[in-house]
């Protein structure tokens, strides 16, 4: 009886453990190993030490993809935090139709990225897309959206006679189009998370503030914002991790990360190196760089936890 009790827990864990070791842990370790090899699938791998990493640091496209990904994260994360918090606060204030709005906001999140990428690609079409039709209603000239490689800051400031070049020109308009779509897609999830967070705040605080004559704006900044900070913290970390992994939009909406590589994101670059040009060792090195960045950022953001009110 006693020995059976010792073995049986492992039998329960075994199926999950086996699958995890085989299809997660081993590939993760392999990824590390492959990054030291010159590895195209058909040929046998050749050990080249740190060459992949050295090449990566000299690779302009790698740095450009990294820069594009950073622009994406820097804009998408705050934008989606601000909008989803706004939606959640508004939704928390109403009684009628709450469920309907929640459903509407959540719909983009449950639908497939492939289908909505196709729809957004067509919406950004210069001639027949909905975006330019809507702009024409308010008298704005049609935009080139996904085929414009100039930076958005560069475009905005050129009207004022200021020429911003290089990275201060901002993400290209093509990348910015992808940013709009990405924010739209993920907004519903964060809104729901914030709604749950808001519902955990006791009404007592607001009643007290009401008696003290605090305005709604003041209540928001002094009560709501501090008390949802654990949610903000969670949303910040999760949205950052997820945004770093953006792939399908680039694959489906752009011509191989074009124009001029301005929408090439790091995961798309991994895909391209691994499966288009079959440089699997190099792709693994890039994947590992991505992993280190995500891990580093998560640990760094974890340190912000001390500012969170629980």
């Amino acid at each position: 009886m006693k020995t059976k009790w010792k073995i049986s827990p492992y039998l329960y864990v075994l199926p999950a453990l086996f699958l995890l070791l085989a299809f997660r842990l081993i590939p993760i370790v392999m990824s590390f190993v492959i990054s030291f090899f010159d590895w195209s699938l058909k040929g046998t791998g050749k050990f080249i030490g740190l060459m992949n990493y050295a090449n990566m640091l000299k690779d302009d496209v790698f740095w450009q993809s990294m820069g594009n990904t950073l622009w994406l994260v820097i804009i998408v994360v705050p934008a989606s935090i601000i909008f989803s918090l706004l939606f959640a606060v508004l939704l928390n204030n109403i009684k009628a139709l709450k469920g309907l709005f929640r459903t509407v906001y959540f719909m983009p999140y449950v639908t497939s990225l492939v289908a909505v990428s196709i729809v957004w690609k067509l919406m950004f079409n210069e001639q027949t897309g909905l975006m330019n039709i809507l702009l024409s209603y308010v008298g704005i000239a049609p935009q080139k959206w996904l085929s414009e490689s100039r930076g958005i800051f560069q475009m905005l400031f050129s009207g004022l006679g200021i020429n911003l070049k290089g990275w201060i020109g901002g993400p290209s308009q093509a990348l910015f189009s992808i940013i709009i779509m990405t924010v739209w897609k993920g907004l519903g999830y964060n809104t729901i998370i914030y709604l749950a967070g808001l519902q955990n705040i006791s009404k007592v605080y607001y009643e007290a503030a009401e008696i003290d004559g605090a305005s709604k704006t003041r209540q928001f900044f002094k009560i709501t914002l501090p008390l949802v900070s654990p949610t903000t913290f969670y949303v910040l970390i999760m949205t950052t991790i997820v945004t770093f992994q953006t792939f399908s939009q680039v694959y489906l909406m752009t011509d191989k990360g074009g124009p001029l590589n301005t929408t090439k994101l790091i995961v798309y670059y991994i895909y391209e190196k691994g499966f288009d040009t079959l440089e699997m060792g190099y792709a693994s090195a890039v994947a590992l760089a991505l992993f280190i960045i995500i891990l580093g950022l998560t640990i760094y953001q974890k340190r912000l936890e001390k500012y969170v009110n629980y």
Partner: protein
Amino acid sequence: MGETIRMTLIYIVLIICGLAMIIPFLWMLSTSLMTQSEFNKQESVFIPKETYYVWDKGNQQQKIILVQEKGKISVVHILNNDNKIIEEYKEVPSAQVKKITKVPSFHWDNYIKAFNKVPFAIYFKNTILVSLFTLLGVLITSPLAAYAFARMEFFGRDFLFYLFLSMMMVPEPIYLVSSYVLLDKISWLDTYQALIVPWCVNIFTIFLFRQHFKSLPQELFDAAAIDGCSTFGMLWRIMLPLSKPVIATASIFSLIGSWNSFMWPLVMTNRPELRVLQVGLSYFNQEASTQTTLLMAASTFSIVPILILFFMAQKQIIASYAKAGLKD
């Protein structure tokens, strides 16, 4: 009064933002019901309208296609009643060419055309198969592991649990290339098992079950033990029947995840017969880039099953996602 104004403003903002959230879907739906020429000519944006031209000769009207207008003369193709061209490039007086717009007209046949254009039936079959078998796998591995983690004492339990959790943190793109190499080594590329087996374990679901099992009262287990219930019997006869909400939540997460997964099947399969819906749709996107209306029809029917699931169980789904995001 100030309160009424405030509420009105809140509703206005919510409605505008809500429209922004669903306009892409509405546009997708309306475009999917238009003819391609109607879409290209931008004759309508949201409500499909059938527009055609007639040659109005006074005593008689003839259906035509307007090719070109040259001042007072128009170049047209003459159509018969079956919309077949019977006379090409005929010149007629422009004043006699009339535009007739019929509202509304929905071209549901776009759906049939899109469905038959590429083997969507096969893609649907593959997706359903992969989704169901993955779900089955998840529902077998998760409660078993969660049971051990929640209610058994064994050497290395906490270590294993943290190992599981830490692997959940590693994003899919990190091990995509090496998984491809691994599946190649075991000759699994281009097989159903490549799409199913690696996803039969879901750490998050294990976590959900574990939390639930931990919350069940010890008295239940003591009573069952006195009645001579085996260890496995407790899981099968007591815990699982009490876990219906968790099973539902886990199933929803798993089904939505499998249905929408793209990068993995794109990389791991090449044969058209093995394409899942998302991959098939992405190939259709490359092949049919000018057939906007068919592309929209295909996008629509690819999301319909998930939307049906969503509308049927939206309270449960939204609550599950909200709960999953809350810190425990």
